[in-house]
């Protein structure tokens, strides 16, 4: 069972899409799809193979390419993929997605397959212990309602208990369901109409949602979640100096790999790293920086530096 195999390669995927098109394709259409779905230089490799007939998968008539295979073509799953699916069946979160009947069907189809791993073989040693209750029926029901609303861009009527104890009741458009590996919790990234008429991004812990109902109203406007997130970043990034002792450079680079960052060497053994973040990330980032002790020095921004000195 090879993970690095040509059967999963990008070129095979591109070719499958070209070959299962309902209609004959022109050379320009083929080029355009390769550019869209392939790597940057794939065009240079694929086109000659189609033109010289080495990949004899099209019948060329006049200027049109007719696929030799059926447009209903479906790639079967490999043993590796089946074993992967079988392993997922033992994960408690799978019941958020599949009901009993669906689980039974999938288990039946994978009856003779060995799972790629067993849950007890993977141990998250620093995961928080108060993860979400995935097997709780009420939680599952809320999760599915929110997922449905997210996919249909439907307003959801949400009754929420905030961490500071305040009860919030509002209409939200779910934008994404965000999972935290560290907290083992789901959060809802949701849009809410602000008083200025714009949409504002809010983050709600799904376990804290008391009640959620779908409304019959759909969001029809433009939703650029990433723009909202990026707009929320402070203009001044966190500016860190990393002293490369006790392997701190590599540790820091890996530790902060999930942030947008930029690093450069500024001295023989010192590096400067800029990390972009927003208010919602601030406390967590402060905690992470503190954990490095004197191996990291915060030199800006002033806001972060003051918070660090206050801590």
């Amino acid at each position, binding site marked *: 069972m090879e993970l690095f195999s040509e059967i*999963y390669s990008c070129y095979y995927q591109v070719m499958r899409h070209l070959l299962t098109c309902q209609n004959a394709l022109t050379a320009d259409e083929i080029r355009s799809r390769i550019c869209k779905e392939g790597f940057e*230089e794939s065009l240079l490799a694929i086109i000659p193979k189609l033109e010289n007939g080495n990949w004899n998968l099209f019948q060329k008539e006049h200027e049109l390419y007719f696929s030799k295979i059926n447009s209903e073509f479906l790639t079967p799953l490999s043993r590796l993929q089946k074993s992967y699916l079988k392993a997922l069946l033992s994960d408690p979160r799978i019941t958020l997605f599949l009901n009993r009947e669906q689980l039974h069907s999938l288990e039946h189809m994978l009856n003779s397959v060995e799972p790629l791993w067993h849950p007890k073989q993977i141990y998250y040693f620093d995961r928080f212990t108060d993860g979400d209750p995935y097997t709780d029926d009420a939680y599952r029901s809320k999760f599915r309602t929110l997922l449905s609303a997210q996919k249909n861009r439907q307003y959801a009527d949400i009754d929420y208990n905030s961490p500071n104890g305040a009860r919030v009741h509002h209409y939200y458009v779910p934008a994404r369901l965000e999972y935290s590996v560290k*907290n083992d919790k789901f959060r809802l990234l949701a849009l809410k109409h602000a008083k200025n008429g714009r949409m504002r991004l809010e983050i709600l812990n799904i376990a804290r949602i008391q009640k959620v109902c779908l409304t019959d109203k759909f969001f029809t406007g433009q939703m650029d979640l990433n723009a909202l997130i990026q707009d929320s970043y402070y203009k001044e990034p966190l500016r860190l100096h990393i002293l490369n002792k006790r392997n701190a450079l590599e540790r820091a680079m890996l530790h902060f790999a999930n942030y947008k960052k930029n690093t450069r060497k500024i001295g023989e053994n010192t590096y400067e790293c800029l990390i972009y973040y927003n208010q919602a990330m601030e406390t967590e980032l402060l*905690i992470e920086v503190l954990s490095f002790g004197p191996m990291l020095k915060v030199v800006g921004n002033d806001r972060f530096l003051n918070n660090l000195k206050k801590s």
Partner: protein
Amino acid sequence: MSNFQELIKSFPKTREYVRDFFVYGFKTRNEFKEKSPRTYDNERRRLESWLGPFVQRDYVPGGFNISLAIDSGLLDSNPLFRVWKTKSFTDNDIVLHFLILDLLQDGQSLTAEELTDRLLTDYETLFDIQTVRRKCNAYEKEGLLGREKSGKAVRFFLDNRLSHWLKSNESARDALAFYQMAGCLGIIGNEILEQLESQNRSFRVKHSFFVHTLEDEILLSLLNAMNRKLNVELTIKSSKKGLENTASCIPLQIFVSARSGRRFLCGYVKRSKRFTCFRLDTVKQVGCLEPAPEYDGLQEKLERNRCLLWGVSFQGTERHHLDTLTMTLYVKEPRELYIVDRLKREGRGGSVTRMGENTWQYQRESFDCNEMLPWVRTFTGRILSLECTAKSVEQRFYQDLEDMYQMYQTGGNTDGTVF
């Protein structure tokens, strides 16, 4: 550069380059010393081809460096998965892939001879029987095709029920959309989704460390050895000095840090008679050896010992069997009781005791208390005292704190009453 190929035969060399570009991203061409400049140029060109939108160029004195600018909070998939989709192949490979699978789509079973004939009659492509048989056998091994015997003849068939079920089942595709981002070996989920013409538009993952997908081939080999209860030989390249060595062990469990995404193999090393953890990103190769009859007993032993681990170290610097760390904290009640919640939630089973008004104590035994220091430091500003039976841990804590006070030129007192 005329022989430049976008696709590659083997993964390991590329794995190192991608990791360096992604993790560091500040090395210029001259600083990649392990390989020739020509190799660097080819690897860089490939990287730019595969991951174009994420490649960032920064001009610095002495050249420019390229890095991968990936903000995981903004992405619905791991862009580094593309690196797994770059395996090279022959012309015959791709043609036979589509034509054989197309011939078998209707569920009928055919022998290699029949397939060869049909390739000629249906598609006007000529292959010899051996080539077709070899491909069918390889696909049977990969699980893409089934095989049955009919008299002396071997017939190949395709069972696509699972693919059809997944394609018609939205909930299953939602699950895959989630697990490709959040779970173990997400690359496989991502490839299934792609086959089903589906993609993730619903989930994001916080604390997602994309770079670790580069170790997935190693992880897969280790899981295979664990499932078969085999000894393994690991080829390891030290991250500090770059030296390569080998180690033999019985692989027992994969330890994962949710905070850094780092993954480790916890194995039993017979030679030292100890449990030891190996960072997966330093493992270059896994070789399966003979079965380990003591496997189940060792797993139970590890399970018993795990509650005394903090992270991945089974021995502290002072070579005590066990050490105890005691931290006393100031917590303004009731306003700051969230600190107590943190101690309970993040303290990995340590005891949390109220010592008096606004004073709480956290205590835990561990094989290596040194590993606890990064977490302990996150309570800086609230720690009244820290004691540890491993005195070097205590000293390091106070020394680091003193260094921080000097670094930020803030007032502090490190005589045991720190605020």
